[in-house]
């Protein structure tokens, strides 16, 4: 059987000349029974059965079932998923099933973390200057148990040096933030962009930017001038090898005219409380939606807004907690999903064979009333 500390050290031998660094928190990906499959589940079960326990506060990604079973999936799937969640609980992993753990964890600049889930890694690197590499799901899990992670370049200041200068004179709502993230990601592919001129309007735009950037490339850290903590330090350290400028027309290639959606999906990454309240107000003003709107959020936000969530159902709007349409087989019942999430636009067709229609949040809601 796998011994976690030994496995992490062996990985460190291969990637960081054996050097490891202690971590403050971990976040585990590879949770949905859909992506893990039987093999992943058995690995996690064996690890739990061996008596392994996490040494640091550890959270986990959304599973393929939501907490209140709004998303109807097969009994077999529920059974498989429960096995994963039971093993996680046994190992002491916090049952906050979210892809946005940064909502609850105030990780500080310069602190070290072993996170998986690309949007979350990119978010804390970029907006908190908390340090994490892109750890594969099982490595984040083993590191949580070991209490340390291989000291790869992303855990050193030199390794976090910006490599590309990006000029973006754009003010971005969530969808546009996602388009910019996707464009920078696709154009550069890898490295660390230093971005000036970009105004991200609100928390939701930050989340969409981080999610899209890391979905469309191997980039997991961007320095945003005036926004990223210690951005001046990173500018001083910068070693620019690439230079790009972004104009509005560069972003239009992702927006295609497509047929009508049969459902609208918001909340990838999980919606924060302010955005959910804002969207609710719009819905209550406009009345019952003609097409169903699905919104995913974290269990914490769901719990805080339970009455609102119940009321929204009468408006054909379904808020669910702890899962998302990217990792749930429920998504396969739809033909075309309109969404403001570029991460969903990338993954939903690939994982479920369902079409996606990218739209700005407010235009996505227009589809719901069309």
């Amino acid at each position: 059987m796998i011994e976690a500390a030994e496995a992490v050290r062996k990985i460190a031998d291969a990637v960081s000349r054996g050097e490891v660094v202690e971590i403050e928190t971990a976040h585990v990906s590879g949770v949905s029974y859909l992506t893990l499959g039987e093999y992943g589940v058995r690995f996690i079960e064996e690890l739990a059965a061996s008596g392994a326990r996490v040494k640091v506060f550890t959270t986990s990604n959304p599973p393929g079932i939501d907490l209140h079973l709004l998303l109807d999936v097969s009994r077999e799937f529920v059974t498989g998923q429960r096995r994963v969640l039971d093993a996680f609980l046994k190992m002491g992993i916090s049952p906050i099933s979210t892809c946005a753990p940064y909502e609850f964890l105030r990780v500080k600049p310069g602190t070290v973390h072993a996170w998986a889930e690309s949007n979350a890694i990119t978010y804390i690197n970029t907006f908190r200057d908390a340090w994490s590499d892109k750890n594969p799901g099982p490595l984040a899990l083993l590191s949580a148990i070991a209490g340390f992670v291989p000291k790869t370049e992303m855990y050193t200041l030199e390794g976090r040096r910006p490599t590309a200068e990006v000029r973006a004179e754009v003010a971005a709502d969530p969808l546009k933030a996602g388009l910019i993230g996707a464009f920078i990601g696709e154009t550069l592919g890898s490295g660390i962009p230093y971005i000036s001129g970009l105004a991200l309007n609100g928390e939701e735009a930050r989340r969409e930017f981080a999610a899209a950037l890391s979905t469309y490339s191997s980039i997991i850290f961007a320095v945003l001038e005036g926004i990223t903590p210690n951005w001046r330090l990173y500018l001083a350290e910068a070693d620019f090898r690439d230079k790009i400028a972004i104009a509005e027309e560069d972003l239009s290639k992702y927006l295609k005219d497509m047929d009508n959606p049969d459902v609208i999906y918001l909340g990838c990454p999980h919606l924060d409380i302010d955005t959910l309240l804002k969207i609710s107000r719009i819905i209550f003003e406009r009345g019952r939606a003609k097409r169903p709107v699905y919104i995913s959020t974290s269990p914490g936000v769901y719990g805080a807004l339970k009455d609102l969530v119940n009321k929204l159902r009468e408006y054909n709007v379904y808020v669910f907690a702890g899962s998302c349409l990217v990792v749930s087989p429920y998504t396969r019942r739809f033909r075309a999903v309109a969404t403001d999430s570029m991460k969903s636009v990338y993954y939903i067709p690939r994982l479920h064979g369902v079409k996606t229609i990218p739209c700005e949040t407010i235009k996505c809601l227009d589809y719901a009333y069309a």
Partner: protein
Amino acid sequence: MPTLRPIVKGAGVVRTEVVRLGPISFLGDLNPESGEISGVKISGKILAVPYVRGSTVGPYVLWHAAARGNAPLAIVAKSVDLMLITASVLANVPLFQGELSEECIEIDLSTGRYERCR
């Protein structure tokens, strides 16, 4: 004698066939129950690829193949990343960086020194 750079070391000397494939994703491409990638058997052989791509749950699939006795004897990749290294360590499959043009080699799994089968 040519040498491949050992990334995850193994032990012993093996003589086996080399299976060369394009970039693969363990999740989706590798069938851990049969040890096949698109109909080509890789178990007990040396798998040579430029790199691996795809899902972060990929290491679980290689681990499962190994648990079923269907893992390759070693993996040789032109470029290695954290995902491939994690997969190799978990599955206990030696990993080397480099390229192979031979159809069959005899390789020392701890040093990466090899020669063409005679």
